[in-house]
């Protein structure tokens, strides 16, 4: 992993005397979130720019250091796959916030509501009558052959038709505007970092907040709880909600703990749950207590060894049976992965037109499916210009960034690709927008994306905010936390 910037809280170094943006260079190729031209901030960023420019870079560095130390002390950490020594790491915070004006957010919010609506309808359809398949809008083989398609869900009715109760959608901005990079419909994570980054900034930059009319996001836990309550099995008035975690060694354990605390619900592991006579109970010191809604942060495979992976030690035997009986709600529902498969993703705009008879408000990224002969040929011919992804992977794993790879790496990747083309999709390398990030030499442009979280119960809800990820390494387009990305606070401004 490339080394992270070194902060110098004492202000040593060339930047000590300069103002924050003195050496900032906008990059002509990329949309800059803060500057519309060199030295000219966008209207909604002007005030912040002035305020920040008055601070010494060393001050920002010191605040950043303080925030990161407090993340470590509070255990706001995540674990990286395949790393033993650094079992718990923080997601570095970049203290310069990214601003979105009211109009931009409005578009994003409407676009996300529309998208999640269509995706839930799609799931209800493919696990029901499958009209969209028989009408030939989405290829049947693509859906039924998807490893995330769960035949066990066929014909099952879920409360309010909600399969995806919590969705985390990755959005990027290019020179052509906003586009959805992917939908995370299984167990999206990152919302705790959104809230932690906001808390850290609020502590240090309290005055700026007030002046900017930043919309608040701290009620996320309340909205999540309300959403889950609405999804309780019918007839249950005061549902017992639990958050199901794989346990303390899971990379997102901190978030599970945090959300359970925010919602005031129990944090359980599979072994805490027992299925008895078709109902789910948790084991308490006072005996068994009935559970009505499970917000699970465990993959489908590990929910119930009887229904899915028999070798799983994490699950609760019989849980899926209780679910089928309608005695418990599992959110998100099993089998939602069929809608965020990277090949199925390509059809989301069609789904929106099909179910809602509307044009998509947020664009998709142009995607070539290697399962189609044309897509495969195109991908292989343009490997040096494309980003290739494996359909079932996430977190930046199994990905090839063509222009940044060596010819040997591309050749090796092509060999794997040919073996199983259906497992791959390719997209153009996106000109992700940049935002000023704090570095030792003052502010510098770095690529960013954002992941808002959308909730769906009886109605759709979202807080005006997102986990904004930033590629801290100069020139890098990879924002994933597991690949050296950091986080920054996103300020959605009210009108």
């Amino acid at each position, binding site marked *: 992993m490339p080394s992270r910037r070194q902060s110098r809280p004492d202000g040593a170094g060339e930047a000590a005397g300069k103002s924050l943006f003195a050496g900032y260079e906008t990059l002509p190729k990329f949309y800059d979130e803060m500057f519309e031209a060199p030295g000219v901030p966008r209207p909604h960023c002007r005030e912040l720019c002035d305020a920040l420019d008055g601070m010494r870079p060393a001050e920002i560095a010191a605040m950043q250091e303080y925030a990161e130390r407090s993340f*470590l*002390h*509070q*255990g706001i950490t995540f674990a990286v796959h395949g790393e033993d020594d650094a079992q718990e790491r923080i997601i570095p915070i970049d203290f310069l916030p990214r601003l979105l004006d009211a109009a931009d957010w409005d578009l994003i919010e409407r676009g996300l509501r529309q998208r999640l609506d269509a995706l839930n309808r799609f799931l209800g359809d493919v696990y029901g009558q499958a009209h969209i398949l028989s009408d030939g809008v989405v290829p049947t083989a693509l859906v039924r052959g998807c490893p995330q398609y769960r035949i066990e869900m066929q014909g099952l009715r879920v409360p309010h038709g909600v399969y995806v109760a919590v969705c985390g959608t990755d959005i990027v901005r290019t020179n052509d505007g906003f586009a959805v990079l992917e939908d995370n419909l299984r167990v999206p994570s990152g919302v705790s970092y959104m809230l932690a980054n906001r808390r850290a900034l609020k502590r240090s930059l309290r005055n700026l907040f007030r002046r900017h009319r930043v919309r608040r996001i701290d009620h996320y836990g309340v909205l999540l709880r309300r959403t889950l309550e609405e999804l309780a099995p019918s007839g249950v008035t005061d549902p017992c909600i639990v958050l199901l975690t794989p*346990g*303390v060694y899971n990379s997102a*354990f901190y978030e599970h*703990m*945090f959300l*359970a*605390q925010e919602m005031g619900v*129990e*944090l*359980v*592991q599979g*072994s*805490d749950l*027992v299925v*008895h006579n078709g109902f789910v109970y*948790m*084991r*308490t*010191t*006072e*005996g*068994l207590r009935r559970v009505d809604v499970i917000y699970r942060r465990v993959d489908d495979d590990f929910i119930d060894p009887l229904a899915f992976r028999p070798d799983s030690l994490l699950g609760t035997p019989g849980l899926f049976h209780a679910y089928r009986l309608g005695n418990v709600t599992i959110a998100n529902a099993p089998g939602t992965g069929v809608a965020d498969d990277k090949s199925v993703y390509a059809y989301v705009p069609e789904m929106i037109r099909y179910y809602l008879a509307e044009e998509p408000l947020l664009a998709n990224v142009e995607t070539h499916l290697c399962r189609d002969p044309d897509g495969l040929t195109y991908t292989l011919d343009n490997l040096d210009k494309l980003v290739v992804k494996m359909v079932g992977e996430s977190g930046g794993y199994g990905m090839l960034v063509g222009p940044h790879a060596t010819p040997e790496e591309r050749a090796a990747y092509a060999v794997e690709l040919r073996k199983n083309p259906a497992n791959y999709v390719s997209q153009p390398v996106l000109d992700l927008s940049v935002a000023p990030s704090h570095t030792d030499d003052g502010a510098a442009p770095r690529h960013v994306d954002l992941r808002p979280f959308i909730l769906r119960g009886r109605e759709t809800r979202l807080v005006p905010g997102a986990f904004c990820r930033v590629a801290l390494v100069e020139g890098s387009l990879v924002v994933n936390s597991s690949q050296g990305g950091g986080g920054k606070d996103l300020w959605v401004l009210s009108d």
Partner: protein
Amino acid sequence: MLSRNAQGLYWMGRYLERARHGCRLLSEQIAALEDQPVEQIDSNWRRLYQALDRAPVAGSLTPNPDDDDFMLADAYTLSDDLTFEPNNPDSIRNCVARARENARQVRNIVPDSMWSCLNLAFLELRDTSIETIWNDRPDMFYAQTENTVRAFTGIAESAMYRDEAWQFLRLGRFIERAQLLAVLLDAQIGLYPTDDHHHESDWRSLLYICEAEFAYRRLYSLQHQPRRIVDFLVVDARLGHSIRHALAELIEALDFVSGGRPLEVAAGRRAGRLASGIDHDWPERDSDDDAATRAALQGIRRSCRGLHDDVAGTYFEYEIEDTP
């Protein structure tokens, strides 16, 4: 409360009490290294290892009385073994690490300040080694670590709501304390018979380990009478580190978690029997007979283990058919 959470809190209480006890034993031992004769240092190491129920590092308990350097190197190895040794499950670092691991699992139900306190202690201990503390001030290290545990206890006292979470934490802490005290006293009498008057400083150091020296001095005298000390540490419920006090605390905790019906659970009945044994049978034993005293202490230790099994069987790992 979720059984696993109750279990986590219970073990957190036990591990921290164990870590604190280890710090106390070692800081007394480090102080002894400075001015006590070699034989005494040696027998105190034996007391320490027996009190922790661990076999000493091979060959390390046969020091050469003529060679002071050798003794110090030895203390270094032994302290490392008891403080940092990764394979010693009860080393101080492992106790803190496990307490913190448990705290991590239950941090959604305890105040943040408790978690932060333990997490900081863990992060510091993780980056410390015997070399560092030995080159610096080992006595300070043990004092600081002990103070961290005390701070944690203090934070829990002031910040925790007195619900089941609090009671299970308390239960673990005091079952551990009663058991550790019984084992320590047994080892003490085994090494220093109560009718032998040549070991006054070893009895004084026992009082120090149990944080009882101050109270003893005020209540009794400057004369350290072994039998009086044993009685003091077993029977006097006003002494924080007496077995009877630990029992009073854990009985209160059991009273709460059993919903005010402690006699309906096995642990409540056992704790009650144990307490009345100390109140009635203990004074009636032949206090001149060290073997009888040790047998009684071993009985207390067995009862503490039984208490643990009772608590686990009733609240943590019960069969589904007979839920409480």
